[in-house]
């Protein structure tokens, strides 16, 4: 009778260890994220603004390959693809059935944002020179701008980590108390081998 009790308690402890601990400390997060080489996910983006009675909804998909390749794709309402690969950023918008490249200066600013995203996907939250990070209960990371100028643009960002180690479930970007971009990720697949071409070409 003693052995089944031991097995039961061991199982309980093992479950407890699996349920706790992957995101309790920065070291835990980075250790787990260190095992993530690629991420594929779909997302729903909701933009909340005081002017809107209902949020503006967009859908899309992302693909990330360590160290810094990213494909950020919107499917609705405006099909577009943002590619970051080997330091180069390109955006393509679908118009008249074809994707055409956009060339505006704001892409440089996008590069800064994308670089932040690649840091987050690699678990490097607390090394960010642009944001001060704090780890909150419930696997929530709050990022606050260090620079006052950036603070005018963004109030703070919340990263809600998923149950599965290495996953981000939701990102909330607060421009003000009532102006929020809400990104919810699902169908996340980690560490699948990705064709490098997805970070260089549009369909």
């Amino acid at each position, binding site marked *: 009778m003693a052995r089944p009790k031991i097995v039961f308690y061991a199982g309980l402890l093992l479950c407890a260890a699996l349920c706790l601990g992957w995101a309790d400390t920065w070291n835990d997060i980075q250790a787990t994220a260190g095992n993530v080489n690629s991420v594929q996910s779909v997302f729903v983006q909701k*933009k909340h*603004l005081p*002017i809107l009675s209902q949020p503006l909804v967009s859908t899309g998909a992302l693909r990330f390959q360590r160290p810094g390749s990213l494909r950020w794709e919107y499917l609705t309402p405006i099909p*577009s693809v943002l590619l970051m690969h080997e330091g180069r950023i390109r955006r393509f*918008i679908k118009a008249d059935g074809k994707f055409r490249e956009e060339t505006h200066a704001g892409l440089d600013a996008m590069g800064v944002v994308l670089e932040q995203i690649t840091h987050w996907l690699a678990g490097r939250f607390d090394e960010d020179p642009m944001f001060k990070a704090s780890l909150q209960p419930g696997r929530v990371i709050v990022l606050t701008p260090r620079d006052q100028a950036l603070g005018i643009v963004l109030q703070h960002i919340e990263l809600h980590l998923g149950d599965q180690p290495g996953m981000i479930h939701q990102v909330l970007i607060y421009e003000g108390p009532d102006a929020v971009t809400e990104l919810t990720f699902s169908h996340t697949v980690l560490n699948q081998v990705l064709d490098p071409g997805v970070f260089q070409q549009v369909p």
Partner: protein
Amino acid sequence: MRFTPLILLLFWIPSACSHLPRLLPMEPSLPTQVQSRCHSPYVRGEWQLVHAIAADLPNGDRQTMLGISQISSDHRTVHCVLLTLEGMVMFEARFEGGIKVLRALPPFDTPGFAQGLVDDIMLMLLAPAGDEYSAGRGAGGELVCRWGNTEGFVQDNVFFGEHDWEIRRYSASGQLIRKVTRLAERFAIAEDNSISSGPFPLPKVMQLKAFGMIGYELTLTLLEAQPLAPATQKIKVLP
């Protein structure tokens, strides 16, 4: 210095030669259908519109953003927001007689941008102020409705056939400075798949061209239209 008069002449001659297209007069009493036709490119009442805006800029840049406009045709007010596709608000302003900028990030914080944007929105979405306008026929037989304003600008709403139209704005010297063209058939369907009462006036795609030294093009694709007062169902525009 002796070349200055020549340079001035080179700038003066084109403007001096500009003139408004001549209108052939119509009968003195405006038929009711002409009056409603003159206002047909616009919605009436209070609306919230969401557009995808593709901008071709003077420096060759091309940029696509989302635009939210709340307009009131009765009060001639505008509340507009420009966002990136990623949801970042780059510009927000209200016009209620005067402009109040609520948020403006570079490069949308340049002097004159807010006024220019509001002017363009009102040109595209609101009928010209005032009840006094003239109607006539253009050289090709098209119906033209012409408004003037206290600043000397002239606006022509030009109608080709049954559906096509252009809005043209001329400076006080008669130069064409803005043109809005309906590009695509409008087709709007309500959320419950029932057709809204009457055809929705705004086109699915329209293009604004700004002429002059700093010219640009905006192509607006309507994504959503929602009447605000009284609150009724949203009209979803099919892709």
